[in-house]
């Protein structure tokens, strides 16, 4: 009994610690700048105003940044799903020399930090004439989305019993047909999860977007917000409105992704 009370006390503390910044973010976005700047604190907006949202959508590049972020994240996740699906299936199911080495490489590559890559990648993209275009991000983002999603999908394909595709192949289907007709439909939830992970990873990315893009019209949301922040005055109301709008889609996606989350990287450790 005591242990359970203690558990709930610590969970409550953690919930408050997690909740306060979100509370402050949402309430700030609904305050007028007078309320935000007021010397007597406004712990909640009174009255509530949507002025910050209107200003953000009318007076800043935010709508543009949303379009850029969406285009890049969609493009990157499509490429990722295609590459990771094929590679994940191949590494999970088909036997050939070098397979284990390749599977290890996927993991290693996932752990290579962008800090080591961003300058050489920039020189390469620059050489290809892609710097300062959204194509640069479309080329760069698969460097982290593909390893992550392939790793996820290797595990996912392994969890599907091989009997069904074996049966299909005994019945005369080729490997490609078995993959296409039998495995893919079964793997659809995992493939969708991989695609959504790729989308959120790309949507959240900051360093490459900061380095590769200079043109104000081509910025993605995180970089655009960073610019908005270091203007002359900090427009906290608008910044928090933008934060809310950027966070909502990710949170919605993660309610679906939650159960795939841990399987991604620590699965091996949990089992072992």
């Amino acid at each position, binding site marked *: 009994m005591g242990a359970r009370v203690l558990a709930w006390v610590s969970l409550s503390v953690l919930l408050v610690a997690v909740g306060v910044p979100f509370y402050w973010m949402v309430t700030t976005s609904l305050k007028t700048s007078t309320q935000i*700047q007021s010397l007597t604190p406004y712990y909640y907006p009174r009255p509530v105003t949507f002025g910050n949202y209107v200003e953000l959508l009318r007076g800043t590049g935010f709508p543009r940044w949303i379009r850029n972020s969406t285009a890049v994240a969609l493009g990157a996740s499509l490429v990722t799903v295609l590459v*990771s699906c094929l590679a994940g299936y191949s590494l999970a199911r088909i036997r050939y020399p070098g397979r284990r080495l390749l599977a290890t490489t996927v*993991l290693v590559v996932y752990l290579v*930090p962008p800090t080591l890559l961003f300058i*050489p990648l920039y020189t390469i993209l620059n050489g290809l004439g892609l710097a300062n275009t959204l194509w640069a991000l479309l080329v760069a983002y698969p460097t982290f989305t593909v390893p992550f999603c392939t790793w996820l999908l290797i595990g996912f394909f392994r969890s599907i019993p091989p009997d069904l595709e074996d049966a299909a192949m005994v019945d005369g289907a080729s490997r490609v047909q078995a993959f296409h007709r039998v495995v893919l439909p079964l793997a659809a939830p995992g493939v969708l999860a991989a695609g959504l992970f790729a989308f959120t990873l790309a949507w959240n990315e900051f*360093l490459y977007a900061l380095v590769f893009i200079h043109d104000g019209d081509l910025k993605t949301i995180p970089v655009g917000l960073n610019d908005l922040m270091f203007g002359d005055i900090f427009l906290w109301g608008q910044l928090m409105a933008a934060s809310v709008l950027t966070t909502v889609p990710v949170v919605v996606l993660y309610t679906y992704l939650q159960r795939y989350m841990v399987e991604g990287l*620590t699965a091996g450790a949990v089992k072992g």
Partner: protein
Amino acid sequence: MLPPDAGIGYLFVLPLVVLVLLLIAYPLGSAVYLSLTEKYVGYPPRFVGLKNYVELTGDPVFRKVIWNSAVFTVGSVTVKLMIGLLMALSLHQALFARRLVRGILLLPWVVPTVITALAWHWMFDALRGFINVSLETLGLIGEPIAWLGQPSTAMMAVVVVNIWRGFPFFGVSLLAGLQAIPADLYEAAAVDGASATQRFRHVTLPGLRPVIFVTTLISTIFTLNDFNIVYVMTRGGPGIATHILATYTYEVGFQALRWGRAVAVSMYLMPLVVVMIVVLARRLTRED
């Protein structure tokens, strides 16, 4: 003789291999080369051997950056592990609404890091931020504290934000680890008369060790390379008080425009990162 379907296997994995070679292996190789050159933007690189590395070793700014990175990483990872353990153990105890609570506690890990850093920048704001405002309301401070404006508090602030963002990853991984410990081990220990503390020490902790090890290593790699939180909250300041390897690499590369030197800065991470990656890869690809 190759196994049947090996050709299709290779064909399917080919796009991945091309991507890894062109966009990861080749850039890493060229990073090593770039770090041995003097490369200014717009000019071809000039080979200078180990000059960048030697100069950095003697540079007090760079030494401070290394120290900051160590403080940032060790401080963040240690506390993340402790809070994550607390979260996992508590969730494991709680029978009611476990999934919902886990989902909510996972939120900081889900939010784009730049947004997290922005929101916390505002939380720490000296004049109207939530922290100062509520401390004043409670009468705990007489005048506002410039959290991000003083070296010691600025470092603490970025560490706090990194902890806030990263502890759920530990919590969720460790919870999965806890759930994988067979219940009969606890029952056997209880039958043998082990107290709760003894059960924790002799059943829970050994059972969790592999997950703790892997999660800590993964988190260390990513914390050591964190860029977003520091860049958005302090830009490495005040002065160089919160500059860590990633932000300093960016500054040398894109403010001072000295690419060779900048890559050399990031290369100092390479040996440590390589060791951690090799250990992790061995652990996680072990066939069970």
